[in-house]
Structure formats: structure tokens, C-alpha cells
């Protein structure tokens, strides 16, 4: 029942006595009686208030009852309001009532019989209530239909035993290419992918209240689309919601494939690493052995056959031995470079001044000539102290080496802040380099000076680069021939990446 339990009855009669008589008959606690004495007022009240029943006197001066009824029936708001005509004669009604088919209409004849009047009024009021209820239910159904048809998911009602589709929403059109009418009455089985049919038929026989499954359907074009189904089972029917998960499944498939690829790549990488390791191991062991023989037997010849040899053969044997020795150094450098690549990078806070002071002392000790080294206060950072010490050893020893021919060798070590990173530099006033070849500085075995100018194998800066890059930083250099060089490297302030 509607929330408003009070029925509103409008009584229209030009005679106050008649109104009084009706009020006497109809008065009840759950009724509100509104009385007016002419057609105009009746229309005003009927249009402005929710009237459930109008009791209308036919014979009134001015606008008579039939005219009032005509107007009420032509108005959308009052069209369904039941009207009870009160007239003196039966015959006049028959004639006029044509065209007033809508809504309940009945007649009362004067003089009014109280019982008949009350009986007719209560029947009409009950009819009116039912009518209103029906309208409300229809509206609700209409709303649900809108809601369902607006859904992107497929919603349908299916007979559990036959799997015949009884109702389906408009999503059938967008998802499957069928108008809802085309699917209604057809069997769900006909639209399912073959491999899912048996499973669904089995599910049709079970009587669980709620269940879910995944099943694929064919579109009108014969494309397979996969759905995640949620079923509520009641009255032998499936109330089903099916969500299209084709894209989701495809994405999952792709992720799975990517993961498989990744795993394969990782395995490949591990294998390559192992191969590299055993390669460098072999290099380490096997390449050195022949050098030992070359060097050793040259020396043995020099010593044991010294008496038979002039100076020139001795000099030539020395060349052989020196080259064997150099080859040994090259192999050692190459191996330490390779080893660096496999090292794990630790992440601890580093006080660089503390780290570098002993390095400077050691390097100064080993230097052939006097060198002036200025160490500024360095910004602390996090990193691997052993590896970063190696970076400074290489940079400082380079600076000492390449400034050794300057009249007053001077080296400066400092740092500066640069946004997300801290930059460290080692600057010298030595031989410098041609900026045109700066891209070659950090390559393995790449050198910008001949061995007779400055000794070296060309691995030091390659190691520097490798360590810095492993920390997530960068290396670069500036220089000019005979005007010195500055080597910079940066470290990220917060190491977001574990490389």
C-alpha cells in the first residue's frame, strides 16, 4: 500500500444540503472529504491536490458535471481519477458517458441510498489504490529495465533445466552482436564455445543458490568472447550476470608470456654469466702459463748461455721478456676489470675525506716526483667504500701520472651538489687530452697517449666507469691538450635502484 493511507474524496454539488447528506454517509477517520459547490472550484481542487475519488453532481448551474468530467479526463494528471456521478435520472448518463472510457466511472441515483453509496465509494477507492500501486510498480520496473539495459555486462534470465534464454538485456547487442529479441527463446548452449557446453549443462542440473564460472560465447561473427558468470538460482531460473573478460584474459595471457620470456632471459643471462666466468677463469689460468715459459726460458738461455752470447742477443731476449711481462699485466688488468663487473655493490654511508686521505698519502709516496694535492671537504654519500676507493685510486694515480711532466704538478679533489646527485671531481694541470676523443677515454684498452709518453694499459678509467655506473651514476671528463684534465663522476643522492 502507498504510504499515504488517507483517501481524499472531492464532493461537488451546488446544493449544500446534498453535500451535507454525502458527508454524513461517507465520513470516516481515514477519509478526507473536500467539498465544493461548482465546477470551476472542483477543477481547481482536482488539479492541485491528490484526489482519489470525485463525487460529481450532474446538474449544476454553469458548468455541469459532464463538462467537468470531460475536462478531468483530458488532463494527464486527473485522467485516472475515478468519478462517481450523482444524477436524478439514468437515461441522461448513457448518452453523455460515451468517450469517457478511461478510469473507473459509476453512478449514484437520487435520492441517495446510504449503503449503496458507501459500497460504491469504497470499491472505487480500492480500485484507485490498486491502480496507483500498479503504476508505481510499472515505473519501478521501467527503472530496472533502464538500469539493466544500461549495463555493460550481459544480464539474462535462463531456464536452468533447458538453458533456454528467457530475458536478456541490450548488452547482448554490443557484446555478442545480437538484438535481445534474437536471443530470447534460444538455448544458451548454442552460443557457448564447444569446450564449455558440457560443463554448463552439468551446472544446469545443480540447485545451489549462487555460483560462478567462466565460459566463452560466440558472437554473431563467430568470434569467441570469454565471460565471467555469476548466477543466482531461484524458481528454477538462472538470474545471470556475465562480465566480458576477454581483454582481461588476453592481458593475463600476455603478462604470463612476458614472465615466461623474462624467466628465459634471466636463465640465459645466468648461463652467459657462468660462461663468462669460466671464460675469464680460463684466460686467467691458461694465458699466463705460456707467458711464464716464454719469460722463464728466455732468462734461462740468457743465464746459462751467457758466455756464448754477444750483447745483441741478450738485448733481444730482454725485449722478449719485457713483452711477456707486459702481456701478463694486460691479462691481470683485463681480469680485474671483468671481476669488477661481477662484484655486488654495497650501500653504506661514506665519509669521502676519510676514505681518500690514506689514498692520497699512498699515491704521493709512490709518485716519482713532487706533487701538490688539494683535498676540499667532500659531500658524504652512500655507496660501496671498497669500489669507490678503487675509483679514487685510479683517478688520482692517473692525475699524478699525466701531470708528472708539468713544471708544478697540482691536483685538486672536490665535490658539488647537482640536484638529484652529488658530483665528485679530480682535476690536474697535466698533459690533458683532445676533447675530440673524449668518447674513447672510458673504453677498455683505449688510450689517448702512447706508452712511451705515459705507461698504462687503458683499463683504469674503464674500471672507474664500470663502478660508477653500477652505483647508478655517470662519468665524464673535460680537458685540453697541455692544460690539464678534470674527471667527474656522480652518485645518486638516494640510491633508488639496486643495480
Amino acid at each position, binding site marked *: 500500500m502507498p504510504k499515504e493511507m488517507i483517501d481524499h474524496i472531492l464532493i461537488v454539488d451546488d446544493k449544500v444540503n446534498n453535500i451535507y447528506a454525502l458527508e454524513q454517509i461517507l465520513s470516516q477517520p481515514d477519509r478526507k472529504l473536500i467539498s465544493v459547490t461548482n465546477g470551476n472550484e472542483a477543477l481547481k481542487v482536482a488539479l492541485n491536490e491528490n484526489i482519489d475519488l470525485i463525487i460529481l453532481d450532474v446538474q449544476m448551474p454553469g458548468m455541469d458535471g459532464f463538462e467537468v468530467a470531460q475536462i478531468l479526463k483530458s488532463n494527464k494528471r486527473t485522467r485516472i481519477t475515478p468519478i462517481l456521478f450523482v444524477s436524478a435520472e439514468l437515461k441522461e448518463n448513457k448518452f453523455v458517458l460515451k468517450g469517457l472510457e478511461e478510469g473507473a466511472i459509476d453512478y449514484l441515483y437520487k435520492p441517495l441510498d446510504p449503503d449503496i453509496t458507501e459500497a460504491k465509494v469504497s470499491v472505487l477507492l480500492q480500485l484507485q489504490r490498486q491502480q496507483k500501486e500498479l503504476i508505481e510498480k510499472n515505473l519501478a520496473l521501467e527503472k530496472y529495465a533502464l538500469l539493466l539495459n544500461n549495463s555493460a555486462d550481459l544480464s539474462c534470465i535462463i531456464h536452468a533445466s533447458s538453458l533456454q534464454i528467457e530475458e536478456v538485456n541490450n548488452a547482448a547487442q554490443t557484446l555478442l552482436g545480437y538484438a535481445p529479441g534474437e536471443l530470447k527463446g534460444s538455448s544458451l548452449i548454442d552460443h557457448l564455445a564447444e569446450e564449455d557446453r558440457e560443463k554448463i549443462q552439468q551446472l544446469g542440473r545443480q540447485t545451489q543458490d549462487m555460483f560462478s564460472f567462466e565460459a566463452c560465447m560466440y558472437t554473431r561473427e563467430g568470434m569467441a568472447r570469454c565471460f565471467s558468470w555469476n548466477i543466482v538460482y531461484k524458481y528454477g531460473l538462472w538470474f545471470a550476470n556475465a562480465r566480458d573478460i576477454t581483454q582481461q584474459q588476453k592481458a593475463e595471457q600476455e603478462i604470463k608470456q612476458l614472465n615466461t620470456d623474462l624467466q628465459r632471459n634471466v636463465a640465459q643471462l645466468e648461463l652467459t654469466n657462468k660462461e663468462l666466468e669460466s671464460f675469464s677463469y680460463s684466460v686467467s*689460468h691458461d694465458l699466463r*702459463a705460456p707467458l*711464464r715459459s716464454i*719469460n722463464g726460458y728466455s732468462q734461462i738461455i740468457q743465464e746459462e748461455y751467457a758466455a756464448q752470447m754477444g750483447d745483441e742477443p741478450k738485448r733481444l731476449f730482454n725485449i722478449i721478456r719485457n713483452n711477456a711481462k707486459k702481456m701478463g699485466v694486460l691479462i691481470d688488468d683485463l681480469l680485474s676489470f671483468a671481476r669488477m663487473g661481477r662484484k655486488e655493490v654495497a650501500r653504506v654511508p661514506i665519509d669521502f675525506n676519510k676514505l681518500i686521505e690514506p689514498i692520497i698519502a699512498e699515491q704521493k709516496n709512490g709518485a716519482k716526483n713532487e706533487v701538490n694535492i688539494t683535498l676540499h671537504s667532500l659531500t658524504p654519500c652512500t655507496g660501496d667504500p671498497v669500489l669507490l676507493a678503487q675509483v679514487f685510486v685510479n683517478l688520482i694515480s692517473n692525475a699524478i701520472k699525466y701531470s708528472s711532466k708539468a713544471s708544478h704538478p697540482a691536483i685538486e679533489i672536490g665535490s658539488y651538489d647537482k640536484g638529484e646527485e652529488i658530483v665528485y671531481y679530480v682535476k690536474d694541470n697535466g698533459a690533458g687530452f683532445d676533447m675530440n676523443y673524449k668518447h674513447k677515454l672510458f673504453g677498455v684498452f683505449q688510450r689517448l697517449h702512447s706508452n712511451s709518453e705515459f705507461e698504462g694499459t687503458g683499463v683504469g678509467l674503464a674500471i672507474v666507469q664500470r663502478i660508477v655506473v653500477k652505483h647508478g651514476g655517470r662519468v665524464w671528463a673535460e680537458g685540453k691538450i697541455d692544460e690539464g684534465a678534470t674527471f667527474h663522476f656522480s652518485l645518486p643522492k638516494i640510491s633508488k635502484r639496486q643495480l
Partner: protein
Amino acid sequence: MTIETKADIVLVEDNPDDADLVIRALRKNGIPNPLLHLQDGEEAIHFFFREGPYLGREMPGCPKLILLDLKMPKVDGLEVLRRIKSDERLRLIPVVLLTSSREDKDIFESYRLGVNSYVVKPVEFEGLIKTVQGLGLYWLLLNQPCQI
């Protein structure tokens, strides 16, 4: 097979040139101790554990020092070391790894197995002479071996 004589030093080395250089370096340092050269790890296992050609023959006394190469075909130095160090009696003989490998994992593994010393063979003969001199001086003269 000839009659075995007691050797103070057992050298296990697959490279004949390297073996020759080590022997020469020993002699150059005036270390006269008798030396037995075994060609590879397999022969070392046969010798120490009296297998193969040594089967049923008494070991002619215990060596004072084993010089062991790391990388050898078939049975490598680490395996020989593992076998020797897990034998109740043989484990008392000092074993020095004389190798070209500077790899951390080799050094770690050797010490884990109980090697007495790990020495990297220098490329230069002069360096090798000095190294062998130090080894001979320490292990054959200064070190007091355990009598077995």
C-alpha cells in the same frame, strides 16, 4: 714400474714447462730435496691413495710438502686437495696451491678445504724463483712437520 724412492716434495702439475720451471727454480735456490712430479690430479689421487698402478704397493715415506696446481684435466687441484684433507693421515702434510688463478672463489674454496698456503705463480721467472725460494725456506727448513 721402477722402485719408488722417498720424495720430500711432491709436485702435481699438468703443464711440463711449468713443472720444469718450478723444478729449476727450486734447484736455483739450492733446495736439494728429492722431488716427485705427478702429471695430473688423477695420478696424484692414485699415488696418495694407492690406487691404479700404485695398487698394493707401500708408500715410500711421507712427503714434507705437496705443491699442487689448481686447473688440471680430469681431476682438478681442488678435488685432490679435498681428498687429501679428508684423509686422517694425509691431512697432516702441508699442501701449497701454486696456481695462476687469482679468482676470489678459488682462494676461498681452497682455504675452506684446508689448504696451508695459496700462492699465485708470477709470470716472470725471477718472481717464480723468489716465490719458490720463500716456499722452500719456510716449508722445508723452518716449518716443523708433523711426523707421520
